[in-house]
């Protein structure tokens, strides 16, 4: 296949269209058409907009997207927030239409780092668990893809363990996660969609990355740099990724793809506002419910209210955590120990389940 000639031809088309990006050989550009389509996997369902509706909605609000937002900076990039990178490494979905799982998980992993205020937090959640264990009940498959609502609900209602519990491989398979997956699972507090242009930028610049989906055209597989706009080729399919920033001056979103580091800008890409339905609707992760030990922290605040067994402790570096409310003696034992730790400014080791303090040592 004379790829070099095709790239030259494509770059000529890009230049004549003044599209502002560069094409070349990538990790997926030489694959067969079927293999390229297997790198996608967004199949809207359950009331989500079709790819055509997304494209139309994005184009219709282009002027709003280009407008600056008073509540948000002119540019923002979670890969460089005062020199800190809150985006987890680029993954590779390879030959399975599991992009929904990767786009969603990327947003959750960044939300975890941001919530902890720790860009170095070692968080790597199992895309395989989400896709092969949670997904089948709502039709997820390598060949048929999936959609966003059940993926977000999977994080909210079921929980997803770490990557080591069920490492990802790119072929259709039964759920094979570890026996203790439930105790290793991460849940989110909730999620919602955002469609308003200003709200998208405000969320991105204050809360965290967003998952989104768009139409992939054939020229996209050869993207190497610049701000992508569709120039050539037909529709390959729907695809989901994670938006990690934006730039008003350049008029583009900064996105994390799941095709490995051999594609795009080391796995990332810029795409123009209003292009291919990228900004019609995006999916926001509201917060992380954590399970596991938080060691050597301190209690710096307490809160309660006129409701039964409702008290929270503020753990330094981690924020508010609710105290278990199973019964009166559990609630009061834990509250008293947390208060003692605060009074003595003593370190504590806290075990939390889905963000609820269940056990602690005061040291």
């Amino acid at each position, binding site marked *: 296949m004379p790829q070099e000639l095709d790239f030259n031809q494509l770059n000529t088309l890009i230049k004549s269209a003044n599209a502002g990006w560069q094409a070349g050989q990538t990790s997926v550009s030489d694959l067969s058409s079927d293999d390229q389509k297997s790198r996608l996997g967004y199949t809207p369902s359950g009331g989500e907009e079709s790819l055509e509706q997304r494209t139309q909605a994005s184009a219709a609000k282009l002027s709003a997207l280009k407008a600056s937002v008073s509540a948000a900076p002119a540019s923002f990039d979670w890969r460089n927030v005062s020199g800190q990178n809150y985006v987890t490494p680029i993954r590779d979905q390879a030959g399975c239409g599991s992009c929904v799982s990767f786009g969603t998980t990327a947003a959750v992993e960044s939300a975890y780092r941001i919530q902890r205020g720790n860009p170095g937090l070692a968080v790597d959640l199992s895309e395989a668990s989400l896709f092969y264990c949670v997904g089948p009940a709502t039709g997820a498959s390598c060949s048929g893809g999936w959609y966003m609502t059940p993926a977000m609900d999977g994080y909210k209602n079921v929980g997803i363990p770490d990557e080591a519990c069920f490492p990802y491989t790119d072929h259709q398979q039964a759920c094979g996660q570890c026996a203790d997956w439930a105790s290793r699972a991460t849940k989110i507090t909730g999620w919602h969609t955002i469609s308003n242009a200003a709200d998208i930028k405000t969320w991105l610049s204050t809360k965290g990355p967003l998952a989104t989906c768009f139409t992939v055209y054939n020229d996209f597989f050869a993207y190497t740099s610049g701000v992508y706009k569709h120039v050539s080729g037909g529709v390959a399919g729907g695809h989901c990724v994670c938006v990690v920033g934006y730039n008003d001056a350049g008029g583009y979103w900064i996105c994390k793809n799941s095709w490995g580091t051999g594609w795009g800008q080391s796995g990332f890409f810029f795409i123009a506002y209003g292009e291919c339905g990228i900004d019609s609707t995006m999916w926001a992760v509201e917060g992380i419910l954590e399970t596991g030990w938080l060691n050597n922290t301190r209690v*710096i*605040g*307490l*809160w*309660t*209210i*006129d*409701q*039964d*067994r*409702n*008290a*929270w402790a*503020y753990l330094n570096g981690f924020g*508010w955590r*609710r105290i278990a409310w199973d019964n*009166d003696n559990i*609630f*009061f034992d834990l*509250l*008293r120990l947390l*208060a003692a730790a*605060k*009074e003595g400014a003593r370190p504590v080791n806290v075990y939390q389940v889905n963000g609820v303090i269940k056990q602690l040592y005061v040291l």
Partner: protein
Amino acid sequence: MPDTKPQQDLLSSVTVTASGEAAISAAPTAEPPSAGETGGAIGAVCASVWVNNKKINALWAINENRNSWVGVAGVGWVKLANNSDSAIVAFTMLGANAKQTQGNVNYRQESDNMLHEMYVW
């Protein structure tokens, strides 16, 4: 017979900074205070009000159901909400913690003059 209240006098002025409303299944929303924050203006407690950056300088309880008070510096005695056993015990624990540590306290007082929500830093 009405509940007993503490008889020993504390300072009597009331410092009010903002109003707020409780939510069902509520969760805390405030972040830790920055250094050097001080209390706000004085006003009447006729609705839901937040009283911020106070110290607890006294505690009082008696052998009556759900009757526990905190002495707030610059304010006086404030009764803890008495709608729930677990809530009033939690309030008492937080009040004791605030007294012990002399940390800053932000609390919400309602028109019944009772304390219904409390942060201790």
